[in-house]
């Protein structure tokens, strides 16, 4: 059996990649993918801890998170389409009407 600390390390790496991508990537779709990566890193942590302690709550939480992530992606992609229709591009730097 693979020790759960391996999963925790993998999840932490995935989370860091996701957070870094959100900050540094300029394409809106890639930013959304990075957010999904962060959510899945959290899922993996929940599952690793749940398996380690034999507690079922973590497994259940992961399913809810998957469902919520799908709902969020649906709304997010709808907004992406609206952005594309009003601007004709998905580059973050073009989206800057609102600023101080």
């Amino acid at each position: 059996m693979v020790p759960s600390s391996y999963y925790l390390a993998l999840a932490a790496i995935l989370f860091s990649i996701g957070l870094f991508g959100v900050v540094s990537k300029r394409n809106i779709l890639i930013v959304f993918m990075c957010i999904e990566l962060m959510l899945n890193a959290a899922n993996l942590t929940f599952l690793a801890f749940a398996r380690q302690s034999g507690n079922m709550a973590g497994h259940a939480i992961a399913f809810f998170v998957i469902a919520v992530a799908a709902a969020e992606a649906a709304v997010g992609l709808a907004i992406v389409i609206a952005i594309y229709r009003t601007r004709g591009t998905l580059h973050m730097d073009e989206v800057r009407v609102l600023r101080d």
Partner: protein
Amino acid sequence: MDYLPFIQENLRSTAWFRPELALTFGAVLLFLLDLVWRDAATRVSRLSAATLVVLGVAAALLAVQPADAQMLFNGMIANDALSIFFKWLFLAAAALTVIISAQAKDIRPERSGEFQAILLTVVLGLFLMASSANLLMIYLSLELVSIGSYILTGFKKGDRKAVEASLKYVIYGGVASGVMLFGMSYLYGLTGTADLPEMARRIGTLSQTMAQAQAMGGQAAIRLTLILAVIFVLAGIGYKVAAVPWHMWCPDVYEGAPTPFTGFLSVGPKAAGFAVALRFFYGAFAAQPGTPLFDAQGLGAAVAGIPWPAVIGVVAAITMTLGNFTALGQTNLKRLLAYSSIAHAGYTLMGLSALSKTGMQSVMIYMSIYLIMNLGAFLAVIVVAQTTGSESIYEYRGLGKRAPLAATAFAVFLFSLTGIPPFAGFIGKYYLFLAVLERASGPAGNWWMALAICGALNSAVSLYYYARVLKAMFLESPYRDEPMGAAIGHRMLLGAFSAAVLVFGVAPGLLVQWTERSLQLFRG
């Protein structure tokens, strides 16, 4: 495994869940009515009336609900006086938003039904946020509020500003909830449970073992993980209340969203965020009554060796300072009010940081008063924008001559937001400062005193930019002289809001008593 007890518990719990059920079915009903009445000439008024009926039914069910505090749905939801207090705030904010939006031009008539239905689901999410007692429930309710808010922010689909605001909201929101969820996963791993009351007990034990281990020089890793996990969870809460450094979405979203919804966004989710924060910090990270730690140092004792009050206090000081100083240079009224709402989140965090009974009460008082004065301020912005089509401060020149009622009411709200007596905002600030100064005589009193002074200085700074609006309204001459009309409902609401601000400012007794009765936090 025997599932029957779980099902029975769920069925039993519905008796305390009727307001939420009314909101759920009401939202579905509104989607249907939207189709049924699609060609009716009086569509908007009919749909708004239907929404008010749904909210009224929810309010009636909430009023007749048996009052005993308890856990519902196998410990997912806590039904206690604290959550019921916040539920009344959300119902009030939603009803006022429906009345305001019915006469505002921001929402096109053909999409009015969708707006009201999604607003109801957001209210449902706020209800669940105020009462969730489990990490999963906190996450789910927060997302229910967020996803509805993303849609309503970008409600004007073809509008560049609205779509951009919505995109920024969904990205910041997605990151904040992802970070929060990651923090929750570590809290779950450290304590082995997702239930807040049970987690509180285990963290208590954990901090005792950690204190023993620390004497021997070990366990630094667990402590560091716990700190990181809580700070990550704080990101989700801080994003909802718009606290620095999770405030960046706030000005853009407030400017881009339809103004009636901006008003709702500035009071509803903010109050819900504070409800979650109260339950999270008071429930799990403040010392439990009846434990040796509580007897020695009171509710605000540091659990797990980390001075949580100091952490929240620093966030509070930075939040109000940044909010106020950035607001100084704003010329768009919606952005100005957005930065002012960040500053107000900072003041309220001051009450939260005290982690005392007075602190909890002051947060509740401030949120109810803030609801009235901030909705009022946004209503004044709506009234001006209806005629001029702009939210720029230059349109407010000579408003005292063009629309005396709106200008006077706006002045009342701005004075109240500054915290000048005899307006209600003063009462709210008074209790916040009281909570902080109470701690100033205790251990590390100088820091509390510094926080209070920081809050007082910030109130002075805020007077400067509020006064800029006042000066434009009353001292400068208008571009155009013709009087500015306003919808009759908006005029009545402006009058009612100003009256409420004055009444709560002169006679806050009822509100104070009500919050005192609602201080009970059910710990399972």
